[in-house]
């Protein structure tokens, strides 16, 4: 080895060692402590992302509301794939970059299940909140709260209204995916329509005048529109959409089909008050009869305040809370301003629907959550 090379190597070792040692000294002794966590709440949204017109948007609304009323700061991520959930939850649970933990970490949708229980087991003092998961063992995971809904009750009410309003005695349903959660919507809706209009002909074993299909994705409005147009052409005049971002295609189909068929066609929205989405470009009146409301925003808002503001929960944190008609977590949209004069919901119809709601609340009507043929 040449002498110069040797010197160069020695110099290099000294420099690297010096700098590295200095860096290590700084890291262990001089480094300023990480700043306090400026956020109280962290949200990991479901795969549909923001703009799904459903639970992701509603959770964001809840956080915005908490920010407005109680100055609760929040941060969020929108994962693009299932594999991103666990690192995100772990990053928030370990409060990377901050000295203090978050008061609450929210996971939206049932897709987060596997990753959230893995992280919750590692951080037993961190509070978590999930939506739409009803199979968590809360004695094993006392730090996860689950908020679920009896969707079939709201679907029953909008179905009852559809049964009253259908002129063709035939109604339709477009779901996002063929799975148990969506079956609750489909079954409640069919049962409700049949309740007020037996011509729909739905029972546990068969369905005569009830058309249904599944888009297979939460973000494919083109397929949703095509399927809804088929339902309308096949003779149904009211179509209920429970398909996340794909629902918008169903609403557009109702707009496009109105006036081309011998009968008026209607859509029914889901989750949020969506009747405004049925107004054609430049029009005044909507083609959407009503929406089934699932008030994710209200219940998430309540949990955010409980975890981040009041900090004293009355009961244990880790429970499954079921929201339904009785506590106002589920409802239906009534907006006569958007309906053209001949189609306004009459006082009689409103009374009947509220009467049915009362019957559901006191238990005299039991709504199926699934049918074998769905």
């Amino acid at each position, binding site marked *: 080895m040449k002498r110069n090379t040797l010197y160069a190597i020695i110099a290099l070792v000294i420099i690297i060692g010096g700098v590295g040692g200095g860096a290590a000294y700084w890291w262990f002794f001089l480094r300023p402590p990480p700043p306090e966590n400026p956020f109280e709440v962290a949200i990991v949204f479901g795969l549909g992302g923001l703009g799904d017109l459903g639970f992701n948007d509603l959770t964001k609304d809840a956080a915005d509301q908490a920010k407005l009323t109680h100055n609760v700061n929040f941060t969020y991520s929108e994962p693009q794939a299932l594999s991103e959930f666990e690192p995100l939850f772990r990053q928030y649970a370990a409060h990377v970059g901050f000295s203090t933990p978050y008061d609450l970490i929210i996971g939206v949708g049932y897709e987060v299940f596997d990753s959230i229980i893995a992280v919750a087991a590692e951080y037993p003092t961190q509070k978590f909140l999930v939506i739409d998961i009803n199979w968590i063992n809360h004695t094993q995971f006392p730090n996860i709260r689950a908020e679920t809904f009896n969707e079939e009750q709201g679907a029953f009410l909008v179905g009852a209204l559809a049964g009253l309003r259908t002129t063709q005695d035939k109604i339709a349903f477009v779901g996002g995916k063929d799975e148990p959660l969506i079956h609750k919507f489909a079954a409640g809706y069919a049962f409700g329509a049949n309740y007020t209009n037996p011509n729909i002909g739905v029972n546990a074993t068969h369905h005569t005048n009830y058309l*249904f299909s599944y888009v297979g994705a939460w973000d494919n409005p083109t397929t949703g529109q095509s399927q809804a147009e088929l339902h309308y052409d096949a003779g149904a005049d009211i179509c209920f959409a429970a398909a996340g971002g794909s629902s918008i295609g169903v609403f557009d189909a109702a707009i496009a089909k109105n006036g081309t068929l011998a009968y008026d066609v209607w859509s029914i929205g889901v989750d949020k008050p969506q009747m405004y989405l049925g107004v054609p470009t430049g029009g005044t009146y909507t083609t959407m009869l009503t929406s089934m409301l699932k008030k994710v925003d209200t219940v998430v808002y309540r949990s955010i305040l409980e975890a981040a503001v009041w900090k004293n929960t009355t009961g244990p944190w880790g429970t499954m809370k079921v929201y339904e008609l009785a506590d106002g977590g589920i409802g239906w949209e009534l907006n006569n301003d958007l309906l053209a004069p001949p189609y306004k919901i009459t006082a009689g119809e409103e009374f009947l629907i509220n009467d049915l709601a009362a019957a559901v609340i006191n238990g005299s009507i039991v709504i199926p959550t699934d049918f074998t043929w769905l």
Partner: protein
Amino acid sequence: MQSSFLNPLVITWFINSTLHFSTPLVLAALGGMFSERSGVVNIGLEGMMLMGAFMAVVGTFFSGNPWIGLLAASISGGILGLIHGLISVQMKGNQIVSGAGIILFATGFTSFMVFGIWGIRGITPSVRQLPTVTFPWLGAISPLMVLMFLMLPISWYTLYRTPFGMRLRAAGEDPSTLDTAGVNVQTTRLIGVILSGIFAALGGAHLSIGFGSRFVELMTGGRGFIALAALIFGNWNPLGVVLSGLFFGFLSTLQGSIDVLPEFSFLAPYVQFIAMIPYVSVIIALGIIRRSIPPKAIGVPYIKEREG
């Protein structure tokens, strides 16, 4: 069960829906044909479609005129094609990497700009649709569906009966001969790629302002890749491309009607299988039957021989 296929309205829906689903596929695939016949692989079709769908809505929203939206879409598609062309032809970059870059760029740009322009996430307000004419048995026909059928003779004539088409094919088969004949290979290829961008964007515009009336984040949903499949299954010639595009559109329609029409209910267990057919058919066409023959110089940047 409930509704029969043998109902004029349902048959009309079936034909109309097939045409609706095929239009974006056929337009993008014919565009891709111009690019690939000239020797440039264009896997960026998906991104160009997405950009076209988005710019069509932007143009329509700000002008109130869907034709302006169509113009905006084709310009944006042309620009993306130009970028892909500059990278892969002019600078001789890797065509696959450049195409993938186009997809990533279009995905990010459109999602970001929806928020940037309207301040809402994921979905734009509805805009005016292209005017449609309703025919018996065919349903509402929009101008882009007409264009799809016009493109068959036009692209066939262009490709096989004009000097430009001849040069385009030569650029894809044997660029050095074309160069010897005194034609600029790079310009020829660049035009091919720009054409592919324009047609892919028009296909995307059909999704946003032809069939629907708004842009939704990631609304193309992989149709660019199915268009590529149609291009390969159609053996890179216009008739084959149009037929395979129509076939794949028919499959999408069939998939949507299985749950509703009793005649097709026997297919219910195979819904996912039907969704897979386009991709499988490409593998069969390319690998097993070997009837599908790509242009010889596809994917290879042309490097002029230097003297000495």
